[in-house]
């Protein structure tokens, strides 16, 4: 399990060929179409090693979209007078997937989703089936982007668990650590070389350099303690007032997991599909109850709910904070609300 190996860049295609023998390999790439003006890679099929954006800083959607896709078909149904026929539409999940080149923050986020969807009180067997067939090959960052704060949330820049393999780019070679037996088995292939002390020193140096370019640490305990008493504080106003309730942060957040279940039917409603779609606690109707009363009718309540959930409620239930400091919410917020600014206010 503690295996550490070296993979020369020149051997990386061999590694990919081996992975592709049993699985579809998905990773950050610019070779998957999409908008030309958009500078971030997206997680899509890696056909050859060169498709992989080894030096990428971030992506808009995290690998959440693979493990917990928006718009999932759950089952189909057909109504014939008094009889209904059901068809499970999740059978396609029976394929092996390798997530290649996932950053530490996103690895930590997957661990959050695992705790939520594979909880002992509740197990989403659709998620569990997909997750069970997923191999995670992480990649530590070479350079963070300007919104990153994984160090503050304890989710990076290095990862200590949640991966099968974890790569660090040393320039002409990768140092690869195994985190599971499954990962260690992959390192048995002949093109992996033993790692030496110099490789390990170089890895440490790279991680430290990334760490140094991240923002100053914050006192998380103080922040969460303050949240307990500052729910009604004025500090929330400037952020909630600026918020457009667009739900962008919910969509790009790698740990946001709320969803709606809805039906898509043909016009006469005799045939349809039950579909799981991403939902957002920033939407007013998200908390609607009978009689169309909205439990969180005020934007301020919705803004706070999202952060209280991530920083206070989820840790109570799942024993881990549900923010990994990936910075996507800040990068894609049309109102330029930066979570770090909120945390700074809460730390005062």
């Amino acid at each position, binding site marked *: 399990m503690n295996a550490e190996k070296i993979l020369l860049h020149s051997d990386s295609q061999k590694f990919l060929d081996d992975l592709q023998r049993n699985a579809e390999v998905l990773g950050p790439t610019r070779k998957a179409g999409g908008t030309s003006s958009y500078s971030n890679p997206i997680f899509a099929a890696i056909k050859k090693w060169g498709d992989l954006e080894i030096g990428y800083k971030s992506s808009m959607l995290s690998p959440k979209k693979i493990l917990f896709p928006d718009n999932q078909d759950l089952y189909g149904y057909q109504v014939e007078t008094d009889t209904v026929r*059901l068809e499970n539409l999740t059978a396609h999940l029976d394929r092996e997937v390798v997530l290649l080149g996932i950053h530490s923050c996103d690895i930590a986020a997957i661990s959050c989703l695992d705790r939520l969807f594979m909880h002992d009180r509740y197990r989403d067997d*659709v998620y569990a089936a997909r997750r069970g067939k997923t191999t995670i090959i992480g990649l530590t960052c070479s350079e963070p982007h300007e919104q990153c704060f994984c160090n503050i949330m304890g989710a990076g820049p290095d990862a200590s668990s949640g991966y099968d393999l974890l790569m660090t780019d040393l320039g002409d070679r990768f140092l690869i650590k195994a985190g599971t037996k499954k990962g260690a088995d992959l390192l048995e292939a002949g093109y992996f070389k033993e790692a030496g002390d110099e490789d390990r020193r170089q890895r440490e140096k790279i991680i430290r350099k990334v760490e140094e370019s991240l923002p100053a640490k914050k006192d998380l305990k103080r922040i969460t303690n303050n949240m307990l008493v500052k729910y009604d504080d004025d500090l929330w106003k400037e952020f909630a007032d600026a918020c457009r309730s667009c739900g962008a942060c919910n969509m790009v957040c790698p740990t946001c997991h709320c969803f709606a279940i809805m039906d898509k039917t043909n016009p006469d409603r005799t045939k349809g599909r039950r579909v799981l779609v991403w939902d957002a606690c920033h939407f007013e109707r998200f908390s609607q*109850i009978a009689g169309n009363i909205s*439990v969180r009718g005020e934007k301020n309540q919705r803004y706070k709910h999202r952060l*209280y959930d991530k920083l206070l409620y989820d840790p109570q239930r799942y024993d881990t904070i549900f923010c990994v400091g990936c910075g996507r919410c800040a990068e894609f917020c049309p109102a330029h609300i930066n979570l770090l600014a909120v945390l700074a206010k809460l730390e005062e």
Partner: protein
Amino acid sequence: MQKHVYMPDLARVVEIREETARSRSLIIAPEKEAIVCEAGQFIELTVFGHGEFPVSVADVFDEGAHRFMVTIQEIGKVTREVSRLRQGSQIGIRGPFGHGFPLEVFKGWDVHIVAGGVGLSAVWLLLKQLMKNREKYGRLNLLHGARTPSDMIYRDELSVMADRANINVALTVDRGESGWAGRVGLVTELLRGDMINPDKSVAVVCGPGVMMKATIVELEKLGVPQDRIYLSLERRMQCGMGACGHCMIGPKRVCLDGPVFPLSEIGNLQESSL
């Protein structure tokens, strides 16, 4: 994977009871396994072609609950479609979900049930179970209020129950109608000090938000402590299993931690409206 948590079991509507102009009870027979259900739990009911909604199990029939009853008020897009269902219609059910009422804890106590409108259906099975083992509990009070007499569900059974000596049934309506000889007024007016010994009482409340709020105020005035006031809450639970996030009240998920809560558990939450 043959089946998964979001796929319902098929069931048939074997009988329909029209309760009021806007609500009806469905007697449902699961096609495969009987449901095992605590009083206070809910199921997710699918009207194929329209969608799914959570609803309390109001009653179970036969040993092992091969048939059970839910009472549905037309209140939204999917519940309106319930009016199209007829005897023999096939529906989908998932569940039951959540925690019911702690019957063990109620043993030896006076139980006061205060229900408003169709909220009565969420405490109906509890009431049946209390009546079945009547000797295990102290005094039993059912205080029920509806908007008008024709909005009152289970009227026949209520009048049978009202004639029994081992339960006190008090009914009221917000607005009377011709033929209604009963009380007119709020359900909170039925709560009287001589009826409740706060040291021996547990209370159960279910109904619309304002009614629950007002009832809690009265119960607290009468000295019933928060940890002995049980509430059955309604939220739009979509998954029913603690993941979708729609039913959260602060850190609590109504579908998993409830829908039955002692007031002491949720009354002081930042998002509690109680």
